């Protein structure tokens, strides 16, 4: 099961679940987190369902570069970090 970890900076605004998911793509993995807390979606994704421009995702230590499709593959042992980008500070 891939593991999703959200920055605790988000916890100031909404509960951030630590999610384990059998999703094989990033978007599906994020969706499983949004099921646990629907309010989280609007903090991570924008109106069009794209990754917010000042949010960054790392999958197994590699930064995800696609912000639109979010179709990076997840492995069963992947660790996904959803963090704030310093660009938005």
């Amino acid at each position, binding site marked *: 099961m891939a593991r999703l970890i959200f920055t605790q900076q988000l916890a100031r*605004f909404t509960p951030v679940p630590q999610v384990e998911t059998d999703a094989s793509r990033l978007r599906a993995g994020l969706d499983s987190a949004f099921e646990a807390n629907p309010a989280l979606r*609007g903090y991570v994704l*924008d109106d069009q369902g794209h990754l917010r421009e000042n949010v960054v995702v790392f999958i197994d230590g590699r930064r995800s570069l696609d912000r639109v499709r979010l179709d990076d593959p997840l492995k069963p042992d992947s660790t996904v970090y959803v963090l704030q980008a310093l660009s938005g500070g």
Partner: protein
Amino acid sequence: MSEHAFLSTRKGLFELTSNGSAWEWGAAHFLGEPVSITLPDARDGTLYAALNLGHFGVKLHRKDAGSDSWTEIAAPAYPLKPEQSADPVEWKNKLIWSLEAGGADQPGVLWAGTLPGGLFKSSDRGDSWQLVRSLWDVPQRSQWFGGGYDVPGIHSICVDPRDSKHVLVAVSCGGVWRTEDGGASWSISATGMRADYMPPELNENEAVQDPHRMVRSAGNPDLLWCQHHNGIWRSDDNGRRWQEVRAVPLSHFGFAVAVHPRDGNTAWFAPAEADQRRIPLDAALAVTRTTDAGKSFAVLRAGLPQQHCYDLVYRHALEVAPDGRTLLMASTTGSVWLSGNAGDTWETVSTSMPPVYAVRFA
């Protein structure tokens, strides 16, 4: 007399409270977070605060009358952009730039103006929002462009107190727009404005005007004022036609305008030197006031910094209270001033606040 005022700033929402003779700092909310605009809803005492979180987007919070706690409610969100759309604008809410209550006969109705130019309406106190497609889809929107931001935005929403279905909105840069059917249909309403920043043949194109701020006098609803990029305009026919006010002292350029709540011929402005130099003329801050519909102006300086002052008063940062005498003004470099006598004299409340986006009385 107003008992509360709210300052929306780069680093939180701050309250000023009056004990009847003096104003003091009250509660601070969302400390550290950018608050773009605040709406104290006089109809039911609700307070709304729009946030623009640097990383996590536009948010909206509501505090009910008598409550000490905020509830996050839905933020206006754009619908999915059709794949075949040729619109170069991203359909993403970049900022809640204006937030206004509907009419007294419309409990729960709110209007929100946003970047990149979408107007949103709520009928349930902000629990849900709908993009006003009838305005978003006007063909002239393709002519709109950003003013101060990369994309267009709606910063002024004026509901007619005589008929809540009549609403005027002002767009930077996209002119003034009118609905008379509650938002079902819209028409351009910037006749008379002039855009010197455009090629000559487009100077009078209504859909490219840059009204920096538009306000309506509640007591004289047909009287509106507009601080425009190229000067000051007023209307005495509910925004159908606009007349330039030419006898303007100091400078034609500025962002803010406040109008007396009962006397629509009285208005205040906070001029800056010019588009290309957005500081007070001669680095000395002044407010200008007309009491005769713009035929003449008084230049008010008492109590305002007159040396090495580089403060800019942004479009929502000059307000007059319902008493018509109490004025609150704040700057993008964090100064705050109050006047209790219609601007004749001012007192400094602070010189060390965060950049102030908007001030409002409740």
